[in-house]
């Protein structure tokens, strides 16, 4: 072992961890560590993608810290990381501040669901647009409100008080959800508006997807928004939502893909889907972006990153559905594959 290790040419920035991994796998050649920070929303998918890539290429170590979209953009702008990640694409002003240039690459997509807790209620809870806007604006306060009952014929809903649960920390999930609410309601747009954290009219809030899910599960009458992958994993009941066409749509791979199919991908890759059309489209979906520099000082970093992204666009897409994410449509994969070439050493 020792003699093999002594033959390595250690690149700057290599961590001790990577050295040990290499030593144990007894492989020759250079090794490289990439550092990334960003969104928590796609983190389970990214972790899987990077660990699978590491299995295939043990000389490449990728550290992804899911600190949040805001931290991702900030650290990326400050040049502290090799790549960033964000659920909200960078704005033009933000892009201007990055001197090495920005390549934004949608790597996966996901949806936000409304999880609820209604003891004694079985079956699918259907929520019209009017109903869930009303709930989050604090205008609908009990589960037997006529506006909720209208969409659920033949079902008796309890008179339980509605407890709205939100994210207390700034998050991309909140951004996606409030972006959707603003798109479908002028009152919401003029009121709380869109943001990673907004001034909620009602409710209590928990920290992270985990905190929100725990509160929903512990509070009879609760309803809150969580990332689909997380809700699926923790088996929170999810509401069936009314989409732009007026149909009630359950969240699943088919309805999510239908939603993405209706979104055109522009050249700068900043595709928003605040309220996707399509008869079977699930209404709250979003892409999530990897942020890369156009120029990297070290050619090997640029080449490795491109290889990782190409793997992420092809083989890694197979993991996404199981984790609750939406595999990218073929057209988007083609567009992103082309965009990767903007990254140059």
């Amino acid at each position, binding site marked *: 072992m020792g003699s093999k290790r002594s033959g390595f040419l250690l690149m700057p920035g290599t961590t001790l961890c990577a050295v040990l991994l290499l030593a144990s796998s007894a492989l020759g050649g250079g090794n490289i560590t990439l550092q990334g920070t960003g969104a928590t929303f796609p983190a389970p998918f990214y972790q899987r993608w990077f660990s699978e890539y590491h299995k295939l290429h043990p000389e490449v170590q990728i550290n992804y810290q899911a*600190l*949040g*979209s*805001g*931290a991702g953009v900030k650290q990326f702008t400050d040049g502290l990381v090799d790549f960033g990640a964000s659920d909200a694409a960078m704005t033009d002003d933000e892009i201007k501040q990055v001197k090495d240039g920005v390549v934004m690459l949608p790597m996966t997509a996901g949806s936000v669901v409304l999880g609820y807790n209604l003891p004694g209620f079985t079956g699918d809870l259907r929520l019209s647009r009017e109903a869930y806007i009303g709930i989050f604006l604090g205008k609908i306060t009990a589960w037997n409100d006529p506006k909720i009952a209208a969409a659920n014929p033949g079902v008796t809903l309890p008179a339980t*008080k509605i*407890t709205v*649960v939100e994210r*207390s*920390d*700034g*998050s991309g999930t909140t951004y996606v959800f409030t972006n959707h609410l603003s798109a479908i309601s002028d009152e919401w747009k003029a009121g709380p*508006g*869109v*943001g*990673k*954290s*907004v*001034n*909620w009219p009602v*409710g*209590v*809030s*928990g*920290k992270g997807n985990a*905190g929100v899910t*725990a*509160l929903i599960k*512990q*509070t009879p009458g*609760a309803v809150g928004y969580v990332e689909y992958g997380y809700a699926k994993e923790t088996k929170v009941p999810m509401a069936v939502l009314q989409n732009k066409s007026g149909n009630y749509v359950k969240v699943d791979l088919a309805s999510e893909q239908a939603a993405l199919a209706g979104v055109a991908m522009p050249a700068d890759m900043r595709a928003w889907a605040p309220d996707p059309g399509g008869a079977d489209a699930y209404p709250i979906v979003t892409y999530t972006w990897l942020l890369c520099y156009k120029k990297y000082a070290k050619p090997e970093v640029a080449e490795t990153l491109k290889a990782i992204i190409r793997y992420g666009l092809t083989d890694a897409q197979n993991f996404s559905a199981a984790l609750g994410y939406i595999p990218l449509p073929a057209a988007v994969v083609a567009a992103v594959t082309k965009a990767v070439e903007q990254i140059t050493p």
Partner: protein
Amino acid sequence: MVSVPSTSVDSNPALLDEDGVIESASIAQPPSAFDVAADRAFRGAALGLAWGVVLIVCLVVVKVQSVALPAIHAYGAGFISGTVWDANRAIFGILPQIFGTLYTSIIGLIIGTIFGVAIAIFLSEGFLASFIDGGLKMVGYADNPWFGSLPTRIEALLKITLELLAAIPSVVYGLWGIFVVIPLVRPWADWLNAHLGWIPLFGTSLSGPGILPASLVLAIMVLPTISAISRDALVAVPPKLREAAMGLGATRWEAILGVILPAAATGIFGSIILGFGRALGETIALAMLAGNANVISWSIFSPCSTLAALLANHFPEAGAVEVGALMYAALILLAITLLVNIVGAVILQRAEAGLRGLR
């Protein structure tokens, strides 16, 4: 008979003389150059570290203030009286957070003090011993040395268990609060709200996280601080006071409430101030249990928000403007904590002055 003591007398002074000479020669030496240097170095290091602590506090305050300065200029006093925190519109006000911080801390402190001082009395005034002794006398084991030390052992065990509470991470308290405390208080809260809802204290229904669960968990978190220091204060009350009270015919409770507790009041008060400091700064457990809603309500079932939780929740995603506002909020939290400590120190001094004659 005569020869034995004489030999011992003869030999002993000789030994003592020898020893005495040798020992006095080895002890009575001026400090070596090394001793002097070591002493000076130690004194210098201790002084440097002591000032270092003060310096670090000053640096923290200066740094926080410098980042907060734009926000202080922009929002001024309106920041403290404002009730909206909306980063998108750059409107910042922290009155609900100040209210929530003080309200949860005070309720938590009241509960924590009642239980903490009661525990301290129980562990220091021999209640366990009299109870166990009574039982042992009945079965005839009172004179057994092993059983005789049983109360002391159990007291030590209870004390360690209590102090262990301080070692539990804050996030564990938060999870425990969500999964145990909230379901536990829900039926009581619902009943109180339904039947006594006209009292402002029970004015809203419990929506899960809120002031009451947060305060209950805070009470448990400050319990080890209060009970451990109070116990030490009670143990340190001079025995002559206790004996004098008993000698004058006071019952046990009269002695405890009339003499021993007042004599230990300084220490007990100190423990409460320390507990208050801990409660004010507690972050993660409150971020998980308070509900983080921008609400000012006297109802203990209402959600609230605290300054520390606000900082923890908003800092990671904050933009430059919001960071300034958050630093301003941090500065105010610092000021509140400082104020509490100063008031506490002043009251402690007064209390100590009043009790000087007892020592």
